[in-house]
């Protein structure tokens, strides 16, 4: 239990205010791990980009229903989107707390982020289950295959992020002396914000724009969506 042994660890304020000594000097001044995260996120852009492209190519091409307009519930997902975006705010606070070396605040904000992220996943589980009950299974049509794959992989990213934050919270609860470092939380924060940004794109394309698609005729569906929006405004 190396972590529990705090006798040799430097005082908390000193350790977390500065990067740990083993962090090597680099050409860019950015640590290896943070640069790795940036490169990974660049790579992940192409991953989600390809999934989103697949969705957009197949938009309105399903031959059988249920179609998005039959099943997508924009208001509910607006709430879950709000929940996820708030988690980005609490993540920022967690990063700030870690940088200031405030271990207590760090744990509090991490727990907030975990709860909000978990809330988003809860909404997604609810939504997936509702869709299943209403007859939209993975193999039903093109819409279901593309929708579940894209949002499912996004949900998997959020879930992985939650586990990561839980690990950070547990580590900081067990060992208040310098771990996790500001850098550790910062890198997790990069990942978390990225996943949130991806959700903004997905929410816009799959819900706000694509959520009103009916059958194979996209033009028709878009017109319906426009009517729905103008109906709300007027």
């Amino acid at each position, binding site marked *: 239990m190396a972590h529990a042994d705090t006798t040799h660890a430097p005082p908390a304020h000193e350790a977390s205010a500065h990067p740990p000594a083993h962090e090597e000097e680099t050409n860019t001044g950015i640590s290896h791990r943070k640069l790795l995260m940036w490169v990974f996120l660049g790579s992940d852009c192409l991953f989600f980009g390809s999934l989103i492209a697949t969705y957009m190519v197949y938009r309105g091409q399903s031959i059988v229903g249920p179609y998005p307009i039959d099943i997508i519930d924009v208001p509910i997902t607006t709430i879950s989107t709000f929940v996820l975006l708030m988690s980005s705010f609490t993540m920022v606070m967690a990063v700030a707390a870690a940088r200031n070396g405030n271990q207590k605040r760090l744990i509090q904000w991490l727990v907030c982020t975990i709860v909000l992220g978990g809330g988003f996943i809860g909404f997604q589980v609810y939504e997936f289950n509702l869709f299943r009950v209403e007859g939209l299974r993975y193999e039903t049509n093109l819409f279901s*295959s593309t929708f579940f794959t894209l949002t499912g992989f996004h949900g998997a990213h959020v879930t992985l992020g939650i586990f990561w934050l839980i690990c950070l919270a547990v580590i900081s609860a067990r060992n208040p002396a310098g771990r996790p470092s500001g850098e550790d939380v910062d890198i997790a924060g990069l990942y978390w914000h990225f996943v949130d940004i991806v959700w903004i794109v997905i929410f816009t394309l799959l819900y706000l724009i694509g959520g009103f698609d009916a059958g194979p005729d996209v033009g028709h569906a878009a017109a319906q969506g426009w009517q729905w929006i103008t109906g709300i405004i007027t």
Partner: protein
Amino acid sequence: MVTITGVIPRPNTYTGLWSWLTTVDHKRIGALYGFSAFFFFMVGGIEAGIMRLQLATSDASLVSADWFNAMFTMHGTTMIFMAIMPFGATFFNFLVPLMIGARDVAFPRLNAFSYWTFLFGALLMHAGFLIGQVPDAGWFSYANLTAAPFSEGKGLDFWALSLQVLGVASLAAGFNFVVTIINMRAPGMSLMRMPVFVWMTLVTSILLVLAFPIITVALIELTADRQFGANFFNTAAGGDPILWQHLFWLFGHPEVYILILPAMGVVSEIIPTYSRKPLFGYPVVVFSGIVIAIMSWAVWSHHMFTVGLGAIANSVFTITTMLIAVPTGVKIFNWIGTMWQGSIDLKTPMLMAIGFVALFIVGGLSGVSHAVSPSDFQQQDTYYIVAHIHYVLFGGAIFGIFAGIYYWYPKITGKMYHETLGQVHFWLMFIGMNLTFFPMHYAGLNGMPRRIYTYAEGFGWEFMNLLATIGYFVIVISLLVFIHNFFRSLKKGEEAGHDPWDAPTLEWSISSPPPVYNFAEIPVVKGQDAYWITKREAEARGETVPAEPHVDPSTIHMPSPSYWPLITSFGVVWIAGGLLIDFGWDYIRFPISFIGGLITIIGVIGWSNEPAAEEHHEAEAHH
């Protein structure tokens, strides 16, 4: 969590089998990549031989049509993903830290993970042979030939899932080398002082990082279709098989440059050394490499001219494809310009490098000829295309790889290879290569389609095919000469010394083979061709450059070996392999795959709880 690391004691052996299984030393990982890549190169070569024997005469019946399909699929997949790419990784691993004056890569354990994941993925792909389930839809596995009704059995599941695992390995390696090159250069090694090989590694790694997610998605969609009943490429549900082609080639064309850019980097190191001149137009070579990488994203549909994308799409991709020949041509002129008025020493690596330039020009020219879409309509799916791809990948990539193997053999092993045998290898391979692939141009333009398992008499294809088959055996003989030379020189080769070629790059400034810690003292770089500068300055002072400064190696802290990369890789391949299990009850594959997930999670937790370097092991490590 911490206790997991306690259960398995950290490996602390530096010899024997376990030391290889747990190594995080980039040089050892490079060697592992090299041997594995050569093994799969031979496997792919045997598959090619079966095809060449079958096609040597008309109406042959050596293999069935089904088996022939499996052979060309596995030949392409093996050569691209399990031979040429890991050969590239061999050089990245061995050379990049040495060339930039670093002691290891940025993430040594991630590096080990890349290798093991690659090896396990490759073995999983070949495991299909054991149960007679071999992929047979071509190396680009076009939808909807890959749909369950048209490709029964598990062959394509092996293909898709193993390729997914190989993708994980490539991505991890790509991340590692981008970070290593950007962050770990020795003092003074600015980007524009890096050896061209390092530049090409950086460009290739960025391409890997950006291109592999696309094939990952394509394979996820294919796997979802085949395993979970999704509709991505199901035409009955409105799915579009052309989507697969777009995704595959949007990955596939950058992939082509992932295969060739490392070889271009190798050649850019070798030609200056044996011409006794710095590389002509270094910044131009670097920038044309970068331009190739950027433009490689804008040419993918030239693989799809006959699909029917329309005149505008075909015209645009004709133009972009012809444009990408420009930076490639620029590089060719730079290499020729380097040799111009140089004091050329025709050692084996130089011969291979010149062979690369010559053969790559032939492949490049045939490439331009089918960049023109109307002309491509005549060439699509004929042996002309087969000739082209082999001129760029065998004449290009493989010649570049062998050039590199000979060039760095003294550095890697500490021994000199046998020069005469090396030249015999070169000439046999050069003649064999042209004998095999040049006639294919004629066969193709005379209408011979690719991927046919046999052909009837009377089309006039027999002679060209017979020549190609004879050429194949000349290549085989040349490779036997290489293998003999390799192992003979390991035993009986002369001591190479640390700098047998009077080379310009930093890896030659340290002893051969390099010590575990590479540089006892991190070098300070004063310009391009850093080691030439050091040597010339010392000569001007009338001194010689010592091979090693005297520093006590026990003060150098190196990362310790670790079990966790191996365990994590094992878990990753188990996830994929589990989905292939079928004991009559289909759903058993999910729990089995899930066990793989658990192994991966245990591996990751153990990994993250283990410090990169174990302080107290260090002292005993380097005695």
